């Protein structure tokens, strides 16, 4: 007979309350798991878009609060970049979030330099690619095709200009699957941003090391005031939407943790007030107050541990379910990492320990003679 076994028996003797508390905790944990996985997936998807393109560094205007870096004239910056060591290609990109159809949400319209390496990672499922830098045609991602109900040959109007869809592609990045891609020159023309880009993508040769990348970043800082060279990960983490989604998941973690701790607190407080006589007995039988604290905290930690496991399973199922419902399809690309799930489990145990601490201390302070008299 050990303390943990005794704690476990104490929980199973009140199955209804234990189940209720565990349900509350598992729901909170499920919310944490689902929202965080979605937020991370969102971030990872952005990064994937850059990584898949083979972009090593991105040169952009210094951080602004807009969701996209503000446009600048490419030719003012490009000459300084092409001659940097290890730089293989400098490719302009212009993107905007635009309402293309009033039946669909606003979508990313990307302008990619014709014939650049950016196009190489896309897999053409249907149709063809643009054939010249000025050809007024669009290729769209599979998700965009689904959301806009468009196929090759259909017309799409972007900012008042009607163009045919000539190809449908698939990308490993969700962001691109939901995007419309045109040549850079075309997007510049349509959005009245002749010569402008949001970012310049740098592809380095394979011999470039981390210190070379750091070197290039430093040179950009020194020679191009107002501009910055960052890796795709850094760009993504600065993105306002990514930041908002991360803030939301952090807020969820905070609120769910607070609620979880309160639920445990309340349950354990109720439990010990019902068991006052029993706790008095344990103390009378020579239990050290420390052992009583260990017992109560073990009980609450077991509750939240079990709640945490159920919550994680629930959260994963919930997210997978969300990924498959019509409304959400293609918008969620959740990422579950093992360390994260382990962290959530650890968090739930910590919640149990903190939620159970005060009730445990209260129990340990019980005066045995009084407690034993209680009916």
């Amino acid at each position, binding site marked *: *007979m*050990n*303390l943990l076994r*005794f704690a476990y*028996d*104490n929980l*199973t*003797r009140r199955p209804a309350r234990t189940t209720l508390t565990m349900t509350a905790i598992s729901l909170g944990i499920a919310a944490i798991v689902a929202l965080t996985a979605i937020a991370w997936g969102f971030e990872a998807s952005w990064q994937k878009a850059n990584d898949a393109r083979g972009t090593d560094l991105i040169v952009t205007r210094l951080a602004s609060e807009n969701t996209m870096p503000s446009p600048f004239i490419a030719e003012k910056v490009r000459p300084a970049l092409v001659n940097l060591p290890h730089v293989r290609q400098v490719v302009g990109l212009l993107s905007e979030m635009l309402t293309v159809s009033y039946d669909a949400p606003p979508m990313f319209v990307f302008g990619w330099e014709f014939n650049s390496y950016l196009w190489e990672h896309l897999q053409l499922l249907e149709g063809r690619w643009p054939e010249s830098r000025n050809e007024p045609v669009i290729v769209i991602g599979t998700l965009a095709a689904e959301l806009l109900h468009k196929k090759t040959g259909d017309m799409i109007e972007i900012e008042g200009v009607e163009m045919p869809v000539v190809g449908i592609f698939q990308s490993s990045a969700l962001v691109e699957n939901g995007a419309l891609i045109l040549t850079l020159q075309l997007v510049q023309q349509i959005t009245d941003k002749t010569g402008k880009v949001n970012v310049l993508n740098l592809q380095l040769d394979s011999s470039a090391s981390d210190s070379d990348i750091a070197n290039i970043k430093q040179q950009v800082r020194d020679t191009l005031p107002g501009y910055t060279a960052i890796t795709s990960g850094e760009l993504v983490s600065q993105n306002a939407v990514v930041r908002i989604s991360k803030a939301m998941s952090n807020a969820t973690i905070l609120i769910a943790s607070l609620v979880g701790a309160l639920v445990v607190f309340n349950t354990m407080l109720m439990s010990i007030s019902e068991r006052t*006589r*029993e706790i008095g*007995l*344990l*103390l*009378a*039988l*020579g*239990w*050290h*107050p420390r*052992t009583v604290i*260990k*017992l109560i905290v073990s009980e609450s930690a077991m509750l939240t541990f079990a709640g945490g496991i159920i919550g994680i399973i629930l959260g994963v199922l919930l997210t997978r379910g969300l990924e498959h419902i019509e409304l959400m399809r293609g918008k969620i690309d959740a990422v579950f990492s093992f360390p994260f799930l382990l962290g959530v489990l650890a968090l739930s145990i910590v919640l149990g320990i903190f939620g159970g601490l005060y009730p445990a201390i209260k129990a340990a302070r019980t*005066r*045995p*003679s009084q407690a*034993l008299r209680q009916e």
Partner: protein
Amino acid sequence: MLRTHNLALHFDEGRTKALDGVDIEIFEGEFVAITGPSGCGKSSLLNLIGTLDNPTKGELFFCNQPYSALQDLSEFRREQIGFVFQSFHLIPTLTTLGNVLVPTIGRSSDHNAIDRASDLLKLMGLESRLNHFPGQLSGGERQRVAIARALINDPAFILADEPTGSLDSTNATHVLDVIANMRLKKSLTIVMVTHDPVVAAKADREICMCDGKVISGSRRNP
């Protein structure tokens, strides 16, 4: 072995005097019954001896050591005292064996506790009841489980508060026989609170109390 000096226990800022200047002495191996009408302070005295309460005034001594000098009361209770209560106070979710083992929980280096518990239950005639829950036992059986629990850590003395109070006469006799038997086997000191003269008669000495004071039997007759 146990001695009290001018022991007092007051409640309500002194308006209620549960104990008022109690001086008694109990010797090793003695079986002492504390008797008196209800509310006379019998249980209060037992609680003070068992360190479940702190005296308002006076001092208690165990082997001539004052209680106030004890470092760890929990350890003292665990190592030296075995409690037996009128209403058994068994934990309903634990088996007979589990209940006997409760005082050993949390003690890291107690490897033969289960063997000891089984032996004690055998001594109590409960070897066939090891895995029964309290709800499946008779009153007498439950009290015998409680006695086994009191003995699990080999205490120096047993404090029993009306141990037969909830039992019929047959069971009461049986339980008293068990206690007497254990006393001999384990050379225990027993302090028992009772209001039953028949039960008290089984003791070596009767300390009679009234209104928080000892009326007779505070010292062993020479």
